């Protein structure tokens, strides 16, 4: 992608109007950290969103409402009961990237390795888009396909909602990478609700190791009513549920190994989420 012009609107309607007018030739721009990965793409006019007041986190009783322009660092520093994203952000890229990259940018276009899509799939988030009419998608709807297809010219991703973790619910995000700032080889997120040592509810997702981040519904069903601390049973269930998926080769390692790594990572995420739930209970 080559940036051939830029516009810095001061108000949301101005930004939407500019994007509407530019159509295919426009591109919403915030941190722009990912633009380099589209080096050979077409010519675009950047519409910079930084002055639109899209950054910040608001707590309501039902949800954390996160502005799409919120830098990842802000998500990392945020503290609140039931807030689960600190650990996710700490595993993304380097601090200079986290300081400029935004939540919206991380999920508006999905890279195979993406971090927050995996976490949001497990956390059951909601995505708010301002178009002609405001629209809300569940993450399941939003990440069913490449989300870019959901946007028409003039649309803007404005905020993301995440439900706080309930006291008996835990969350974990495990990212396998060659060093701390590297892209993922396999990422797994899990949110597990525990009652009397038994998992009553689970949402789990994986990414990076497969072409597109996805929820693993089969493991959620398999886990319901079972004891997540039974590792052999968990491993068996995870391996079986991942069987239909095709895996990618990563870092010169074979697809078969990445499949194994993904299975272990998913089992780890589920187990750590269950432990997190236990810890939050006590």
């Amino acid at each position, binding site marked *: 992608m080559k940036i051939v012009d830029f516009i810095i609107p001061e108000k949301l309607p101005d930004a939407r109007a500019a994007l509407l007018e530019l159509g295919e030739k426009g591109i919403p721009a915030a941190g722009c950290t990912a633009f380099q990965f589209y080096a050979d793409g077409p010519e675009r006019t950047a519409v910079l969103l930084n002055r639109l007041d899209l950054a910040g986190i608001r707590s309501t009783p039902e949800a954390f409402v996160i502005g799409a322009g919120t830098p990842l660092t802000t998500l990392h520093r945020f503290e609140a009961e039931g807030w689960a994203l600190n650990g996710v952000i700490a595993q993304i890229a*380097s601090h200079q990237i986290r300081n400029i990259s935004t939540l919206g940018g991380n999920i508006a276009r999905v890279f195979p390795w993406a971090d927050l899509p995996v976490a949001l799939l497990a956390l059951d988030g909601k995505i708010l888009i301002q178009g002609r009419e405001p629209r809300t998608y569940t993450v399941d709807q939003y990440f069913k396909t490449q989300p870019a297809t959901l946007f028409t010219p003039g649309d803007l991703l404005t905020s993301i909602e995440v439900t706080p973790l309930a006291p008996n619910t835990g969350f974990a995000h495990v990212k396998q990478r060659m*060093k701390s*700032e590297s892209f993922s080889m396999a990422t797994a997120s899990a949110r597990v609700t525990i009652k009397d040592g038994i998992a009553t509810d689970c949402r789990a997702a994986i990414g990076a190791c497969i072409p597109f981040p996805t929820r693993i519904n089969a493991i959620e069903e398999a886990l319901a009513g079972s004891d997540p601390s039974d590792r052999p049973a968990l491993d068996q269930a995870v391996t079986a549920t991942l069987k239909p998926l095709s895996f990618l080769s990563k870092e010169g390692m074979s697809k078969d*190994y990445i499949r194994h790594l993904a299975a272990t990572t998913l089992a780890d995420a589920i187990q750590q989420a269950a432990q997190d739930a236990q810890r939050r209970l006590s």
Partner: protein
Amino acid sequence: MKKETFSVVNHSVLKIDGLQLALGRKSYVADLKPSDALYVKMLWSPHAHAEITSIDIRKAETMPGVRCVLCHTNTPRNIHCTAGQGFPEPSPYDTFMFDKKVRYVGDRVAAVAAETPEQAEEALKTIEVTYNLLEPVFTVDRALEPDAPIIHDEPEAHIPIPVPYEPEHNIVAKVGMEAGEFDQALAQADYSFDYTYETPYAQHCPIETYISMAHIDARGRVVVETSTQVPFHARRIIARTLGIPVRQIRVIKPRIGGGFGSKQEMLLEDVVALMALRTGRHVIWQLTRAENFRTGRTRHPIRLRIRTGVQKDGTLSALGMDAINNTGAYGGHGLTVVSCCGSKVLPLYRCDNIHFDARVVYTNLPVGGAYRGFGATQAFFAVETQIDEMAEAIGMDPLVFRQKNHIRTGDGSPVFQALGEGKEGTPMTIGSCALDQCILQGAAAIGWERRTPHTEKTGRYRTGIGMCCLMQGSSVPEIDMGAAAIKMNDDGSFNLTIGATDLGTGSDTVLGQIAAEALRTTIDQMIVYSSDTDLTPFDVGAYASSTTYLSGEAVRKAAVKVLNQILGVAAEMLEVPAESLEARESTVFSADGRQATYSEICLYALYQKNQFQIMDSASHITHKSPPPFAAHFVELELDTFTGCIKLLQYVATVDCGTAINPKLAEGQTEGGVMNGLSYALTEQYLFDSRGKMTNASFHNYHIWSMRDKPILKTILVPSYEETGPFGAKSVSEICINGPAPAINNALYNAAGIRLREFPFTPERVWNELQKKQA
């Protein structure tokens, strides 16, 4: 160890360029660029092996902003070697500035100089090239087959020294030696071992990529400011490549943003120099990070077959190494790197029966070069893995086995005599050696006594402790020369000029300390300048662990001569014999209590009587290459479910003789270890089916940050090397050799697995775990 009281050396004086660099002041090549410089961009070969059947640059020459286009049709065809080594080089002349043939993905095709980098890029797109694709050679096995394509079929290819060179068989060099009765000893050993190891491609990754700038001075000479470790070799090779006299060229090395061997090479200078000559303009060329990976120099991948025999009592009875060195598309450093596999590794353990046989082979892959450790790194992985294995086989603690067998003061080795740099080596007995102390202090620091056998370990996460011993050399004896000049100033300060090349190591500071010590002055009185082929004396440059030991002794000798001149003038001033005078703290004292300060002495010499400039120079060659020694220890935690390794702590001891600047010596060790750790665990060259590196980016080629740093402890173990300046020997290279073998041995201690190939990726480790379980 000799007890000597030093006032400047063996002290951690502040690095003399530290503050200037910490302030970000203009210091490096890119910082010196005038605003009207032309920018160079290169068209690189997309093919691993092809003939250029036609090339048309006419359109490019007329593109906006373009001032010069170079390709094989309009440049001198002078065969040369890009490796910055002594003359004649122990490497083949197999390179042209531009050739009709390309031999790896990233070989030069054509270059453009334009007013902006973007204009140069645009012009490159208009160059029309047609290629006749040839079968590429991607493995040493294929290269050695009788029907393999010949990579260097140009008639000019030759090696300028009398050693075997068979380009028609893709063979760059052969070298070998025998001592005792190896085959017999191996057959008669109580236990014998025969394993083959593979070491990977890797790159130095200095944070400053290759960069050179040239301009024409008022007299019409070409001035090249360049990020090089070898300014004098660079001048010689530029002259040969362009076919112009050495006197027409001045090479200046400003501050360098790291080299580690990669800049022991003439890679960019010829192009900017020729473009400056053709345009009369400043011309600058800096490689992008991707170009640096694909077209810069790399660590040679080497296959090592190690055959060893051991007796039940722990006697090492046979030690054999067969090496095949993949030098890539060009042969620079190929022979010397593989020679060092033998010469810097085989002598570490006493053994009567030694076999060494090595071949160096061309392929159509990235080009090997000098890289910190230089062959020893590759060979120590194999040998130190197998040493560990032998100890375990006879039921001996691997630490004790090493204590029993390692070389010590007074020992020689037939290897020293047999293996040199493109010729026979130099006989040598070991002077200083504190390896015994290195082992003891390192073992205590890591807690070796906590080490339990892998058979007692269970569970998902298992810890392991491993170690290795190491040696290197200090300079190339009877070949390399360093020189220094010292000139005294009115205020009692001194200009020290050296050809020795500080590429970030701190050698300007270290050499300044040596001069200050010998001159009986302080470091703040030294104005150190390196390196400039017009202004500083010759030095081979920064390589072969030579600067402190070799150039340092030249500096010390020059300082002693200058001190004698100072004493002579003082004797005249104070009217006493020079022999009765003593110098300390920048002042000369007579026996009767009178004194003359250095400033007074210099002012007298410059202005008062029998005037002359107090100055002198000295040169030095070495007659031996005293090894530094080291013992490295690592403790790790292995995730047996995934094969992922977590480092818990690393201990690096080193005997570098007298540490001239202890903090800088520690810094060398810490940096080398960290580089070795990522080399062992996360750095790799991944190629597509056409021989193109696919991960040429810091996003995908993994060198670590502070966040990844394990606990790292460095212990300097002093010794005194009689032949070195104030007891010093080298420190810079040895440290990188330890991590791969130490980690491999710790993996065995954790889970009973031994790998024969690295980086130890999670998959490789996990596969070994699966094999062991089966």
